């Protein structure tokens, strides 16, 4: 039983994510996980003392949380500027949410559990990936804003600071939920296969692309002439 689909460099492959996109993705992943672990220390009301030791105690964790927070917010912004066209393409695709995406979402729970279902042709991002893009991005923005308010509470009105605490927690939980599912679907879920290599190496197998993202695959073919 293989955990992740094998990487096959010898077959025909097409580019899915540029270097900047992949850099943004993985830097965001690493900082998110560190932020999550250091943040959970306080969320768990000090029931995870063993984890605090790893970060040099609660104060150490607080410092790491702040350093990572800056990287977490600045790197994606820089990457958006560096890869503006890719960014626009991504969001254009996300907001072209159509009938096929709804069909995907309705059928997806079965696919998720491993049943074989016929899914209509998907664009570069399927219905689930579009949902993930919207929910995760919104959560990250709200977590970042509320986080900065909590970091510098004295310059904000007290009600806003009070509101920032539950906001930070709720959207941290939603983002973490999405990350759990996204991480699993993008690696260990057998149906997702090549998408893992799409984010690691940047390319996916052509026949996988044709099967999973027909609309996108056809467009790529057209552009290549």
């Amino acid at each position, binding site marked *: *039983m293989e955990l992740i689909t094998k990487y096959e460099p010898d077959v025909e492959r097409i580019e899915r994510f540029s270097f900047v996109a992949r850099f943004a993705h993985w830097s965001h992943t690493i900082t998110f996980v560190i932020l999550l672990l250091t943040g959970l220390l*306080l*969320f768990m*009301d*000090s029931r995870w003392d063993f984890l605090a030791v790893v970060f040099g105690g*609660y*104060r150490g964790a*607080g410092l790491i949380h702040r350093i990572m927070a800056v990287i977490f917010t600045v790197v994606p912004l820089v990457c958006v500027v560096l890869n503006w066209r890719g960014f626009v393409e991504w969001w254009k695709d996300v907001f072209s949410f159509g009938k096929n995406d709804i069909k995907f979402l309705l059928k997806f729970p079965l696919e*998720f*559990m*491993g*049943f*074989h279902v016929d899914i209509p042709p998907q664009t570069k991002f399927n219905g689930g990936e579009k949902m993930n893009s919207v929910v995760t991005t919104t959560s990250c923005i709200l977590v970042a804003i509320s986080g900065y308010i*909590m970091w510098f*509470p*004295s310059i904000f009105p*007290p*009600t806003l*600071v*009070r*509101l920032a*605490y*539950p906001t930070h*927690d*709720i959207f941290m*939980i*939603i983002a*973490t*939920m*999405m990350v*759990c*599912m996204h*991480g*699993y*679907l993008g690696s*260990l*879920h*057998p*149906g997702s*296969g090549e998408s893992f290599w799409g984010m690691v190496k940047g390319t996916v*197998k052509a*026949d*996988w692309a044709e*099967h*999973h993202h027909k609309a996108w695959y056809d467009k790529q073919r057209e552009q290549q002439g």
Partner: protein
Amino acid sequence: MAKMGNLYDATKCTACRGCQVACKNWNQLPAVIEPFKGNYQTHESTNANTFTIVKFFEYDDVYGPKWYFCKHQCMHCEYPACVDVCPRKALYKNEWGAVLKDYQKCVGCQYCVYACPFEIPKYHKESDMVTKCTLCAERVEAGGIPACAKTCPTGALQFGERQELLAIARERVKYLRANGFPNATIYGEHELGGLNKLYILGDVPEKYGLPSEPKVSSITTFWQNIVQPWFGLLIPLALAGSAASFFTTRFLKARREQQEGGATHGTHN
């Protein structure tokens, strides 16, 4: 040990601010100099190095101006919101009613600053901790009384058992109401389920800068009672779903392959 507390009689206070000085002296706090604001009040509010302050209020009345003084400090609530929100359990309530803080545990998150309905705890930047009045717990436990009550020259501040202080307060309010203070009232008996700092006020609480119905913000209670204990369960749920899928996908795939007579399903699933 019975609940102990302070009784502050605003009608006896002359705003000498001896309590402020005694507090600074005992707690070894440096002076904080704030710009002149046009009245006698030393500071805007309590701050990280000033655990208690006397606030000044001026009102016009048919009989001439009225000048009210009111000592503000930690109220040592019976049900303290700061203790509830503290993620490090640095804040706690001791057996005779004082809300105390273990500075070894404080990490300066400032949750308590924004949970307190009286806006008392304040952030101390240099030490990255939040500070507040301790009801001089170490003095009381050594058989003494709080520095502020010890120094008060007019008898406006008394320290003792809460029940005894309440009896004194009721007598005093009765006397005040009969002698030109029709709005005289006790503050702290029932507010927020009871405070360990009791007040005798000559007028309505608002005129002394005290909220007449102090309330912990509903945002804070929502956060503490709903978000913190329940929302977090969504994360293990997502993990459990993924784990379940990990096994069912592989099980169903194996079964499909078996049915197809060992033929592989192709490169895609």
